[in-house]
């Protein structure tokens, strides 16, 4: 194994910041509108495009990526298993089911109400998963993510069935495959909620780290374990739900980013949280740009690109971990 670790905790965040800035610039310059960055610089291009579409889209990718990475980080701490994440363990699928139900029962609901319904469904679905996950034997670490994947699949199948019966399959595919191409000013701002929750996670980073050491250690250090579980659950669920409502499911971000950062920097969240958020933003924005470029001027949804990139990264992590052990 390459012993690549950053002794200086500032190294990775700085590198990540530089890279993210570059990606943001590229993202602002790439699009079917034909306005290049140079045009924007000389103010000769259509700055409207920038304000209405490209800036919101870039921000949305950054916010969604950072949020999903942190949600994954917290979920892994709570489940005490490195191979789970909200998008594949039933949280996102529950959110999807929640929006679907609210769309059927109350078609005219505003986005905010849909997000609320999605959050509630996500909390329920995730709580159920975590309750089960904690009862699975710790000696078989691969059982928990597997259980999560199939659990998510079953909830997804239920959603598909309902959508099929109610002729909403088209809608469902919008939520089940993340895509930034619909992001415009005024249609993504809900994602800032995710940023707020990331800030909350930063405030309680120490407690989250201790929580990952287990219930007994947490209680021993005077942490209200049950309360922390609830807070973590809400953060995970709301970030996932908001992302599903605005963008759709983006798989693997919450899985691979925390793992990669943990390899480099360890698991002390006070130190790793910024790097994790930044790396999540980089991954999502990078995949979105890739999706815009592969078949320019047509776009490939970020969910599809991430399905390939993320799965490869995940398999890499899996093989590496297995050969390490």
């Amino acid at each position: 194994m390459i012993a690549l670790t950053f002794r200086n905790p500032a190294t990775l965040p700085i590198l990540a910041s530089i890279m993210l800035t570059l990606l943001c610039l590229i993202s602002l310059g790439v699009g079917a509108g034909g306005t290049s960055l140079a045009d924007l610089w000389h103010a000769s291009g259509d700055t409207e495009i920038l304000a209405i579409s490209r800036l919101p889209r870039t921000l949305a990718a950054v916010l969604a990526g950072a949020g999903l990475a942190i949600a994954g980080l917290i979920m892994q701490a709570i489940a005490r298993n490195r191979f789970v994440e909200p998008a594949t363990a039933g949280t996102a699928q529950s959110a999807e089911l929640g929006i679907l139900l609210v769309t059927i029962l109350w078609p005219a609901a505003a986005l905010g109400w849909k997000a609320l319904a999605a959050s509630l469904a996500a909390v329920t679905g995730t709580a159920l998963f975590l309750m089960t996950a904690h009862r699975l034997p710790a000696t078989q670490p691969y059982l928990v993510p597997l259980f999560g994947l199939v659990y998510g699949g079953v909830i997804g199948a239920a959603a598909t069935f309902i959508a099929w019966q109610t002729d909403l399959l088209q809608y469902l595919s919008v939520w089940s495959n993340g895509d930034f191409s619909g992001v415009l000013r005024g249609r993504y701002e809900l994602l800032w909620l995710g940023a707020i929750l990331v800030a909350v996670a930063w405030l309680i980073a120490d407690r989250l780290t201790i929580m990952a050491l287990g219930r007994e250690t947490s209680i021993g250090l005077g942490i209200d374990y049950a309360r922390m579980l609830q807070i973590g659950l809400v953060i995970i669920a709301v970030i996932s739900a908001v992302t599903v409502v605005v963008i759709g499911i983006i798989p693997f971000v919450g899985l691979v980013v925390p793992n990669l950062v943990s390899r480099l920097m360890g698991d002390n969240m006070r130190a790793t949280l910024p790097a994790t958020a930044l790396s999540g933003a980089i991954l999502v924005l990078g995949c979105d740009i890739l999706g815009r470029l592969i078949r320019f001027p047509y776009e490939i949804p970020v969910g599809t690109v991430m399905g390939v990139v993320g799965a490869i990264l995940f398999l890499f992590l899996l093989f590496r971990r297995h050969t390490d052990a």
Partner: protein
Amino acid sequence: MIRIEQVSLQYGAAEILKNVSLTIPKGGVTALIGPNGAGKSSLLSLISRLQSLQAGSITIDDLPVDTTPSREMAKKIAILRQDNQVGSRLTVKELVGFGRFPHNRGHVTQADADMVGEALKLFDLTDLAGRFLETLSGGQRQRALVAMAFCQDTDYLLLDEPLNNLDMYFSRELMRLLRWIADERGKTIVTVLHDINYGGGFSDRIIAMKHGQVVADGPPRELVTTETLRLIYGFDIPVTLIDGQPVALPFTK
């Protein structure tokens, strides 16, 4: 003072603890011994509120363990569990530093840093401070966890089989340290031990449990006798005195 009154614990039909009453005054080292399944670990878990009480009451310095806010308790009592697996990728220093959490709630002061430095030195971990726990041997990890409990700087320190994974050198070192912490820092130490001779050598008092009850209680010289040990373990163990210290010799065929 830890006051345990009429505590019982049941899992389904299995009675783990039967009406246990004990007081452990402030100061000194108390060793908890007894055969496997006697209820020692359960008692420790109840005292340290890791498990909730079913019957009876436990107070520490008159604070009931089940109703006092957990945060307050964490400044009063620290516990080292038997299980020493740490899933997180933390360095030794980070882990030991988390022992300060009940005091600093994440805002590390110079005093905290000094305390961590002292703990690393005391437990011979200074050279390992930057290493990730997963790269350590079982014994090194065990020392790191004891150092973390020490850093919590509580009046009461409970340890569940702290000598697990330690070789003879570090076992003795740890027991000497515990003795030192009790004598010089005035802490109260309660530890589950499997080797009664460490109890005989380093503790002020030995409490023996069997089948969920206290069967013997007293200073080592009174307790470590062939009769008492037969009562606890059910076979004859010769005991000899070496430099005034009773030593049990269960090694004869």
